């Protein structure tokens, strides 16, 4: 749904130049919630602003719903007709909501429809529908100044949906909100994604946001995407930095040096099975649990367990094979003595 290829953005301020994006290849599939996470200054905002050409990339291409936006004429602030029409099909929500204080909630939601040239009657009906969808039907006549942050963001979301977009871009939409409100806004985004089949590209600096709503994620650093993939794949990858952060295990023990330490990751339905006791029973071995955690990531139950089996890696090849046959992901942690690697 959204594809960027070799996206580069260089800002020039006098003789100084900043490379905000350095060859970003991003692929967001239709109907998924895709999160880009990274520290401040990583280039996340620049990336999302390049997707609807609020920022013209220095090089590279951006394709949204099959349309190459980089090929459309017009500068970033003075878009040509085609680009403006393409933008109407891409919703965007902002960290600071960007609502017009001079308009009521209803009028704010109607704004994009006025721009499209819809008549008054149709505008009103559509706005009422959207406000209902985001749960703010009773606030139609209020002014943004009378709303809480969470309500303002709901208005922002309703406004972004006015043009029936297939894609929603969210630039730190929850960063100005408290944790409780953040959760409710994320739930709303998730619902919209599921009900309307909306593709969502969101950027955030909070891992929790990724964990709560995303199907896929990318980690950005210094203008580059350093890793990306579906959360399922990321969690299955022992070297994944994102997975470590989504699912930290650092507080777990590392085990005795003469034993084999395994990290077992299980997702979805395998989380309910008593594989540890099965393992112990089947192979008559001692299994020492060093640590375990179960969490909901992207709407799925994910668990990770670190266990210690006595003996070296070579002694445990069969039990490890058994676990893998059960559909579990097993990583053998490098141990100081036997140096075994999975």
């Amino acid at each position, binding site marked *: 749904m959204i594809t960027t290829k070799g996206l580069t953005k260089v800002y020039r301020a006098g003789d100084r130049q900043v490379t905000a994006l350095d060859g970003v290849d991003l692929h967001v599939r239709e109907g998924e919630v895709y999160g880009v996470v990274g520290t401040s200054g990583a280039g996340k905002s620049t990336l999302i602003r390049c997707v609807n050409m*609020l920022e013209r990339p220095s090089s590279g291409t951006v394709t949204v719903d099959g349309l190459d936006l980089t090929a459309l004429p017009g500068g970033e*602030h003075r878009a040509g007709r085609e680009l403006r029409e393409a933008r*109407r099909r891409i919703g965007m929500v*902002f960290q600071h909501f960007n609502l017009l204080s*001079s308009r009521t909630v209803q009028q704010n939601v109607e704004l*994009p429809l006025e*721009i499209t040239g819809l008549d008054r009657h149709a505008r009103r009906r559509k706005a009422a529908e959207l406000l209902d969808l985001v749960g703010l039907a009773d606030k139609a006549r209020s002014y*943004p100044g*009378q709303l809480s942050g969470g309500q303002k963001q709901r208005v922002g979301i309703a406004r*972004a949906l006015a043009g029936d977009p297939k894609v929603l871009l969210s630039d730190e939409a929850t960063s100005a909100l408290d944790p409780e409100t953040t959760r409710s806004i994320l739930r709303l985004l998730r619902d919209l994604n599921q009900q309307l089949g909306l593709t969502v590209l969101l950027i955030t600096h909070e891992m929790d946001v990724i964990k709560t709503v995303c199907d896929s994620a990318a980690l950005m650093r210094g203008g580059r995407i350093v890793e990306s993939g579906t959360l399922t794949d990321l969690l299955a990858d022992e070297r994944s930095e994102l997975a470590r952060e989504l699912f930290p295990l650092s507080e777990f023990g590392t085990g005795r040096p003469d034993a084999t330490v395994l990290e077992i990751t299980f997702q979805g339905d395998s989380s309910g099975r008593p594989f540890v006791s099965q393992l112990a029973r089947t192979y008559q071995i001692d299994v020492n649990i060093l640590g375990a955690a179960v969490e909901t990531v992207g709407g799925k139950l994910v668990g990770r367990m670190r266990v210690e089996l006595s003996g070296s890696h070579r002694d445990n090849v069969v039990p490890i094979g058994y676990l893998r046959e059960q559909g579990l992901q097993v990583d053998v942690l490098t141990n100081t003595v036997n140096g075994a690697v999975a």
Partner: protein
Amino acid sequence: MTWDDMQPLLWTATQETFQMVGIATLVTLLLGLPLGVLLVLTDQGGPLRNRVVNKVVGAIVNVGRSLPFVILLVALIPFTRWVVGTSIGWQAATVPLAVGAIPFYARLVESAVRGVDRGLVEAVHAMGGSTWSVVRKALLPEALPALVSALTTTVIALIGYSAMAGTVGGGGLGNLAITYGYMRFETNFMIVIVIELVLLVAAVQLVGDLAGRRLSHRGGPASLLARLRRA
């Protein structure tokens, strides 16, 4: 002079002042507003960024603002004659009044519009709006309270200038003050005229403030203060 002598003179002069300030205000609004908006749009970072236009318009506005009004009054005589066909009377005074007030208002408009959150401009762009949509849907409505207060300031300045124009044959209350109060030593009449001018200015300020307050009574900072006060 008795009050009965003063009244008809005052009435005519007041009407003249109203007419010249009114027309000058209208012209100022019509030309100063777009000029001020243009200054913001063509500035770097604006949607129509254009160094040349921005610098040229900025320079004209600056020159217009720095010229003392008395100089403008005299220097514009040929232009005034060309526009209204005469260089005396209240009709003639409207020309230098408007010419003086346009750059003044344009700068106030510029700063009012600059005060609008850039995020709103971005939001309109993101929803597929043109520069015109940005101006009409975001910049002007959001800056409206500030634009009204800028206009109030401008009208008050115009009342002051109109009195000055009156002293060189421009009609209105200024003219009356000079011909009777100053040249004929009618001190009482002078005092009455001054009081009327003061009341006029106060009334304009009051109306402007009320309008501004009403427009910004939308739960913005103004009503936040009100809420705090109530709490």
